[in-house]
């Protein structure tokens, strides 16, 4: 399945590179330099970011669901996405930070959200308590974003932020790709390395400990990895919902319901899904934001998944 998903990602990435408002072949005939610049500086960052951010969200979703042993867990439900948005807003509006600063703010925000979640839920908290605490953290951080907006110096901050929070990959830059992709991949690598431990955790915390897994250090590693995998992506593309929640549910039945083994396929499926969604927003005649489309598709699909399992 991993190979098939990887091939799907590759195919979708090629489609993503091929479509756009102008005919690249015609431009190449007229001005090869311009065509190369359009491809490398506009289409490549877009396709690459879709793959990387989708993979980060899918992998982080699978890992949080595995760690918390709860199918509702995902970066957007538990707070790291909201934390990343808050971090990027604070970095951008109040510190005047550039691309790097906003990405750093995103990662720090995601990390802070997850640490707050663990502190609130307490050590050894049951998964229900963790999810409840996560919802509280996400709500709190959402309110903090509103507060930050109220204090923002520019009267257009609200409009800017609303546009940004709807999520988009339009006109992103190569430096943004080169910054975000390695951070996301590093996070994903950490998650994949933790996969066997997460599989053991599915048998229960005590069983996992008896198998020689240090659950406290596992928690820490997963949290840092999830912050890396989601934070930079949110800072670059805004908040893109539902991929982290839905994708693990699609792939898990195909890996024997092993939560750890689902991480890599979930990352690949997330990459494919976000790339497909980003292709769709460009082909659709209306001006739909990427985050809006993923939620529009993700919510009914998730409902169908729930109803099917009833």
């Amino acid at each position, binding site marked *: 399945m991993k190979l098939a998903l990887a091939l799907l990602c590759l195919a979708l990435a090629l489609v993503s590179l091929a479509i756009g408002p102008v005919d690249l072949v015609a431009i190449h005939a007229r001005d090869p330099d311009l065509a190369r610049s359009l491809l490398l500086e506009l289409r490549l960052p877009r396709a690459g970011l879709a793959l990387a951010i989708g993979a980060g969200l899918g992998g982080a979703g699978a890992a949080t669901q595995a760690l918390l042993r709860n199918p509702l867990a995902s970066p957007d439900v538990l707070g790291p996405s909201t934390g990343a948005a808050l971090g990027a807003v604070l970095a951008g509006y109040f510190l005047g930070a550039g*691309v790097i600063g906003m990405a750093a703010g995103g990662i720090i925000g995601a990390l802070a959200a997850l640490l707050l979640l663990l502190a609130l839920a307490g050590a050894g908290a049951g998964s229900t308590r963790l999810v409840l605490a996560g919802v509280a953290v996400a709500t709190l951080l959402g309110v903090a974003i509103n507060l930050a907006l109220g204090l923002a110096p520019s009267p257009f901050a609200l409009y*800017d932020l609303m546009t940004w929070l709807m999520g988009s990959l339009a006109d992103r830059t190569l430096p943004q790709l080169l910054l975000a992709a390695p951070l996301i991949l590093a996070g994903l690598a950490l998650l994949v390395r933790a996969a066997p431990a997460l599989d053991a955790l599915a048998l229960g915390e005590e069983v996992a400990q008896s198998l020689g897994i240090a659950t406290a250090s596992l928690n820490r590693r997963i949290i840092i990895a999830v912050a890396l995998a989601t934070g930079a992506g949110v800072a670059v593309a805004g908040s893109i919902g539902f991929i982290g929640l839905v994708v693990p549910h699609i792939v898990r039945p195909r890996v024997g319901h092993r939560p750890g083994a689902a991480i890599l396929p979930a990352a690949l499926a997330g990459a494919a899904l976000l790339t497909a969604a980003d292709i769709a927003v460009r082909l659709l005649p209306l001006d739909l934001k990427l985050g809006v489309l993923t939620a529009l598709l993700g919510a009914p699909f998730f409902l169908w998944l729930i109803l099917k399992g009833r």
Partner: protein
Amino acid sequence: MVGFAQAARWMLACASMTAGDVAVAANPARIVSLNLCTDEYLLLTAQRRQISSISRLGADPQETPLAGRARGLATNSGRLGDVIGQSPDLVLTMGEAPQDAALARRLGVRLVALPYPQSPADVAAQVRQVAALVGHVAAGDAFAAEVAALQHGVPAAPTDALMVGGGGLAPAMDGLAAAWLRLAGFRQRQSGPVAMEALLADPPPVLLVGRYRPGQVSQPQAWAQHPALARLPSRRITVDGRAFLCGGAAMPAEIRRLQQQFPAEIRRLQQKFPAEISRLQAAR
């Protein structure tokens, strides 16, 4: 959000301009403005001692080129309820806000809500209206003359140009900003979202980029700094984004600056893109 609160004010259909009001002999002495654009009108026409307060934005040098005139003036939040305590004898604002109009009626406050201007002539008329309200007709006439004088500096043929705001959104081709730009010799060639690829594939002779809160980074504002735009052959001209926020009282100075700074430039462009220019002239 002051900006949003202001953007939703109700136009009180000139109820305050009835004959009874005009007959009032004394000029208003405690004027309050709730909106950046009426702040600018007021700063241009009223005497300082007549002004009780202007909106927070009107005194912010990041928001208006006229903020220098507002030094020392009290500021308000832009909400009518917050300035009632100053017992104003004239409250100015822009846009529609039915609740404010009702509140003003109930409290007997004289509220003048100007509609959004659609053209430089509208702006001139509004400045004259405010000047008359505050009792300084001459200031309004001077501004209107200034706007009229801009006509003399308009280059013979307009240059195809594209003004882009935050996030790559271009203002309307028949809107207020485009009308001011025509006085500087630029013809806005497109409106709505601008695809960067399309812009690079078919560059306009001139790209006008508004400079607004330069120290502050946000994704929409970063649009104009996209590295791919470095290879855009268009002449990039920076305009004062603050003046264009209202497209109001601060515009004549900005248009004059553009007229003086770029006539030679525009002539050169017209030589460089003769086909474009003649096509445009034919279209007119």
